[in-house]
C-alpha cells in the first residue's frame, strides 16, 4: 500500500517541496543545505536509484523497488524544476502583491504560480518522462541482478561497491559549486 502511495504521490510531493523551498522558506542556512542536497540528488546518476531498486527488491517487493527508484529520481528533479520555473517569473509580482496585503502563499497561488504554470508543466512532464525512461532498464537489470545474487553473493557485494563509488564520484562532479 505504501509503495503504491509513493508511486502516486511522488509528483505532488516533488512539486510541493519545490514550492515550499523556492518561495516560502526564508533564505537561511537550512534552505541552503536543502538546496545542496536536492541539487546533488537531482543530478545523481540513475545508478543510485538502481541501488534502491536492488536493495528493496532483495526484500521481495517489486512494487516497492519500483516506487523507491521512482521517488528517488523524480522528487529532487521536480524540486529543481519548480525552482527554475519560479525563477523565470518577475520577482516584482510577489513583492507587489504582498505590498497590497497578500500573504506570501496568496501571492504565490494567485499570481506567481499561474505565471509559472506553462514552464512548470513543461519541465515536470520532461522530468516524469526522463525518470520513466531511466527506471525501465534499471528494473530489468535489477531483476537479472537478483537472479545472480541468489547463486553468487560476492558478485552482488562487488557490484554494490562499484555502483556506490561511481555514484559518489558522479554526484561530486556534477553538483553545482
Amino acid at each position, binding site marked *: 500500500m505504501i509503495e503504491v502511495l509513493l508511486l502516486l504521490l511522488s509528483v505532488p510531493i516533488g512539486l510541493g517541496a519545490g514550492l515550499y523551498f523556492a518561495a516560502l522558506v526564508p533564505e537561511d542556512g537550512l534552505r541552503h543545505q536543502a538546496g545542496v542536497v536536492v541539487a546533488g540528488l537531482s543530478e545523481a546518476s540513475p545508478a543510485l536509484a538502481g541501488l534502491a531498486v536492488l536493495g528493496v527488491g532483495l526484500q521481495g517487493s517489486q512494487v516497492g523497488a519500483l516506487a523507491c527508484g521512482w521517488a528517488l529520481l523524480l522528487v529532487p528533479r521536480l524540486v529543481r524544476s519548480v525552482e527554475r520555473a519560479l525563477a523565470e517569473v518577475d520577482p516584482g509580482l510577489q513583492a507587489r502583491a504582498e505590498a497590497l*496585503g*497578500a500573504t506570501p502563499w496568496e501571492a504565490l497561488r494567485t499570481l506567481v504560480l499561474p505565471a509559472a504554470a506553462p514552464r512548470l508543466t513543461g519541465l515536470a512532464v520532461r522530468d516524469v518522462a526522463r525518470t520513466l525512461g531511466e527506471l525501465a532498464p534499471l528494473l530489468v537489470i535489477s531483476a537479472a541482478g537478483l537472479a545472480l545474487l541468489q547463486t553468487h553473493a560476492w558478485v552482488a557485494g562487488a557490484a554494490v561497491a562499484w555502483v556506490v563509488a561511481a555514484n559518489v564520484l558522479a554526484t561530486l562532479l556534477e553538483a553545482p559549486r
Partner: protein
Amino acid sequence: MSQRQLTPRLVVRALSLRVADAPVLQGVHLEVPARGVLAVIGPAGSGKTALLRLLNRTLARGPTVQVEGQILLDGDDLYSERQRLRRVRQRVGHVFPDPVPFPGTIADNVAYGLALDRVADRTQRDLKIERALKTVGLWTRDRAELMRPADDLSRGDLQLLCIARTLALDPVVLLLENVTRSLDPVATRRVERCIRAVAEHRGVLMLTHDLAQAARLSDEVVYLEDGRVIEQGATAQVFTHPRLQQTEDFLAGRTGEGLA
C-alpha cells in the same frame, strides 16, 4: 475643515533601524500630513527606501534587523502585536518604482486587493474600481477597454494602473517610491497630475531623486542624510532658504564632492 483633516495621520517617532549592527536610520521624526505631499529627498544610501519600507512593514525582518521607535497611524502603533499585517499594508499603500502589471485585465489588476479582502458585493467592488481609475485618469465607460490585458498599456499608464491598484483599497497614506524613475517626461507629467489629485484627499509620502519634481509637487520636504533627518519644512522655504549648509550643499549638487 475637520480636525481629522488637519491632524497628521501617520506619525514617526524616534525611528531607528540597524541592519547587521550598521545604523541605517537614526532617530527619525516626521509627520505625514492628512492631505498633501511630503517629499523625502537625500543622497543614495541615506535611508529613504528603508524608511518607506518600514512604514508599511515590507522591509524584510530577521535576526540582524533591529527597529526602535514608533510608527503611529491614527494613534495605533503599526508594529504592535494586535495589528494585522494585511490591514497595515492596506491602510499604508505602497507603489514601487517600476510598474509591474499582474496577469489579467486592467479591471483584474485594480480588483486584486479587493479580492484578497473578499469584497463580495459586486456593486461595491465596481464602485471602488471606478473611483480608483477615475482618480488616476484611466477610467472609461467602455467595458471592453477595462477588459483589455493590462500588458497592453504604455509604461506611463501601467504606473497609473499600479497607483489605482493601491488606491482601490482606500489607503490612509500613499507611499510612492521613485514612481516616475523609468518614465518619459510626458508620462511623468501625467503621473504627477495624478499624485496631486490623490493628495487632495489623503497624505502622500513621496521618495524622489528628482529635486525639481520634489519642488513642483510637494508641500513639505524632509532632507535625509546618513539615516538622519537633517532638515524639514515647507517646500518653498527649504528650497529657497535652507536653514543648514548641508541642505544647501545637497540642493546645489555639492554633496559627496571630494569623495571621488
